[in-house]
């Protein structure tokens, strides 16, 4: 089951990442989507996939491109609020 969970728009990047990790842990699921509803960030957790061995990490995209991170698998990208400003982020899973 997919859970769309809101996160306040004033979180900085590390706070949003922390929230995403805590939600993966709580729902024993994996992050599959990032975005916003116009007023806050929204993360999407698939709670049927089981708790991941390593939690998600978030990085800003560069000119709309999710940069390649060594030993990380790209998951998705989407526009979230970071300290109140919309910013495109990419989500990765350490391997």
């Amino acid at each position, binding site marked *: 089951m997919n859970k769309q969970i*809101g996160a306040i728009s004033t979180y900085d990047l590390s706070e949003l990442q922390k929230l995403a990790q805590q939600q993966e842990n709580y729902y024993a699921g994996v992050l599959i989507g990032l975005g916003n509803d116009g007023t806050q960030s929204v993360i999407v957790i698939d709670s049927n996939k089981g708790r991941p061995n390593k939690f998600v990490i978030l990085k800003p995209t560069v000119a709309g491109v999710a940069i390649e991170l060594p030993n990380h698998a790209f998951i998705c990208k989407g526009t979230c609020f970071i300290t109140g400003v919309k910013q495109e982020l990419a989500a990765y899973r350490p391997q």
Partner: protein
Amino acid sequence: MNYKIFGVLGIVLTGCAGIKGTPSPTVKTEDALSALNAYLKVDVLTKSDSTNPKDRNKPEQSKVWRDTIIDARITIADLYFRDFTNDLHSQGTSFNILSDFAVLGMSAAGALASGGTTNVLAAASAGVTGARGAVDKDIYYRETLPGLIRTMEANRKEILVGIKTKMKSHDASQYSLGDALYDLQRYENAGTLNSALSTITGKADEAANTADETLSALFTATIVPEDVNDRKVKLADYIRGLKSNDKTTLDKIAKLIKIAVTPDMETEREFILDELNKRINSVVTMDEISGQLKELTNEAF
């Protein structure tokens, strides 16, 4: 589009003046209005808040009363909407109503650059502005009206799903009759041409942003300290670990945190997990929930 074929069809249909586009309804709107009259009066809210259950006709609980009012009003709204769309279909070939659409803002609606209906809207609007008589009525009737009705139906359905979800998962203190009446007003408004046109024009105005704003959060979660998070995860794992023979325990937890008990265990489990996730946002709320659950589960969270 082959206008010659539609032209011929138009002539043929004009000759069939006695044909109706819809069957006779099994329930007439006026009969339903009469039967459900008690639930349509303006004093339902006062009765809902009354400490005397007899004010609600029967000694019913607030939730039962709330749900009865909601169901009655949804039924009536649906019957009115059915009558309205039937009327629209029957008036569909009348040029007056079609030109009214144009006044309501066809040009803006046509700015949305996707879908056959909107292209027709733009083309038709230009036709109305330039030379009213030149508008092809078949285009409106066959393309525009069904598109507007679909938009109204989609808007109504979205609100209805929200109402039904809240009815199922919230008691009368969490989703009050006042809140429900507000949602029901939105439900009725969603079944109007103005609402449908606003949706279409709104999409056009916000086309650049919609791609990122299609998500809708269940609730807003909060970061908690690591030790609280560990306890929260332990509690979630406990809830997930309850087997089918533990339905009674799950029901007790649902009642304890004041959410609706549902026959389907998985649905109930999901509601409980969401509610606990929403509520536990600090060490204080964690301690509170943990204390409440301890007697029930013999577990320390």
